[in-house]
């Protein structure tokens, strides 16, 4: 089921990109900590009391930030920051589309697929390499928070709560990973594989963002994967929302299985 040479090759090929993404994610969250601590707490709360900012935060984080008196609430905004998501999604897309759709695009798939390795093993091995790289990236956000808290002395924040948020982040990124592996297994070119996933992820962001301001979109909220990613709800309840986690992991697995089923049967065209 797993071809270790493919796993090792993929990890090695993407190591530099991964290290760069990890550094950027962690560094950004550390800086975010410093930025939060550079403002007086009262002033931050005044800004957050402005209605449109409240709605904006609520749309991103899944709950009203003013409902929280916990210091983790503000820190969790880093887990929703567009820059963090851009880095995570970009890395996921880069690896998943690079190995299957990208190899068909470049023509190198002929070499790979004429080795005595089943198509299932190629797909599973690539997916394993993706998971092995993308999950530590998610925990890089938590690491940044931990480093930031340590460096700023903002010790009131409980990192265990942020760890729960990180678990939710991992599930959301795995959902995107499942989708991107499916797109990679189905498409003949890297461009369309990236475009399809980008459109779906972007749709998720837009629906999730606009629904708090435009109630007409609320019935469509369930179609956005970000509806199941709610850091503030986890911090408010101090518990992981297992239903959301299951939906994210289940949809990711569903997409992944569809991709596998098609990849096993499809033609591999000459470049």
């Amino acid at each position: 089921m797993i071809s270790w040479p493919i796993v090792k090759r993929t990890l090695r090929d993407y190591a530099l990109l991964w290290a760069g993404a990890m550094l950027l994610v962690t560094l950004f969250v550390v800086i975010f900590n410093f930025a939060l601590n550079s403002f007086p707490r009262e002033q931050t709360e005044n800004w957050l009391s402005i209605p449109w900012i409240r709605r904006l935060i609520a749309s991103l984080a899944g709950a009203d930030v003013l409902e929280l008196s916990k210091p983790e609430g503000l820190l969790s905004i880093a887990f929703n920051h567009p820059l963090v998501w851009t880095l995570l999604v970009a890395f996921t897309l880069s690896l998943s589309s690079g190995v299957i759709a990208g190899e068909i695009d470049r023509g190198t798939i002929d070499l790979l697929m004429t080795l005595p390795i089943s198509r299932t093993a190629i797909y599973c091995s690539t997916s394993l390499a993706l998971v092995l790289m993308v999950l530590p990236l998610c925990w890089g956000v938590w690491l940044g928070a931990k480093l930031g808290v340590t460096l700023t002395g903002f010790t009131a924040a409980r990192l265990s709560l942020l760890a729960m948020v990180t678990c939710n982040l991992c599930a959301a990124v795995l959902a995107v990973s499942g989708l991107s592996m499916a797109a990679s297994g189905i498409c003949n070119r890297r461009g369309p594989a990236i475009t399809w996933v980008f459109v779906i992820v972007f749709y998720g962001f837009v629906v999730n963002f606009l629904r708090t301001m435009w109630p007409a979109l609320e019935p469509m909220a369930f179609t956005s994967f970000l509806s199941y990613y709610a850091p503030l709800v986890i911090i408010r309840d101090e518990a992981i929302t297992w239903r959301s986690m299951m939906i994210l992991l289940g949809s990711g697995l569903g997409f992944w299985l569809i991709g596998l089923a098609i990849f096993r049967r499809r033609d591999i065209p000459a470049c």
Partner: protein
Amino acid sequence: MYVIETHGLAKHYGAIQALAGIDLRVPRGTIFGFLGPNGAGKTTTMRILVGLLRPTAGRASVFGLDMIGESREIRRKVGYLPGDVRLYEWMTGRRLLGFVDAARGGGAAREIDRLRGRFDLDIDRRIRGYSRGMKQKLALIASLMHRPELLILDEPTTALDPLVQLTLHEELRSAAREGRTVLFSSHTLGEVELLCDHVAIIRRGEIIEDSTIDALRRRAVRRVALRLRKGESGVLELPQGAHPYETLDGTVNLGWTGPIDGLTAWLSTLRLEDVTIGPPDLDDLFAAYYRDDVAAPQRGGGG
């Protein structure tokens, strides 16, 4: 025993018919040439045999194993060289071969070293810096290094200089002597004639000829030029197998099809001043197969 057998193998891309139900049998231990013009279906057939494409209809087996259900086991015994070689440009040649070796279960280090020497290739450079010919050599090493029982090579001499082509020919002959089988495609008749025992010709997705090279040669035309002694005159009575072309300055040019014995027997009855007998010329035969507007020559036995 046939290493490759296909029955009614067909491949359609929507309305486009790439293969129209071909029956192909490749005997063990032979060098089998697969000839045809561009777009005839050579690459499609080969890609089906290595599991890259799924046939629309028909079936194929390699070593008696089903091409779809037992594709992985087949690929363990097969070395494949695609027609358009693309490699991981960011790797060095050594790393690429190491990856292929590891994916095949290892143990090819000595053979890699031998082939690297045979093809005179520096494998410690990044592939990005390789010329087209060097990439072709590296891909050949990758397909030969595990000493596969069956080699499927799609136009393998493309981009190779003549000396390297000779090295490859030696490697392929050596493989055949060891009982291994080579299926290679080409649209160069000379190469096939030089190297192959058997040949199949494909045109528009159909096998239109499947024969041994010797059988084809027997059907091919020899050019014969003869000059009669002075004083000899009259109309030549041509035996069966002779086709007159022209008479120029007293030299009679004709073609001869069939066993050479018949030709020599006929020539011995003539009072000749000079005679030149050329080798069987397959060019005309193949040109007729390739041309769309000319009906294919009648198929002969053999193979």
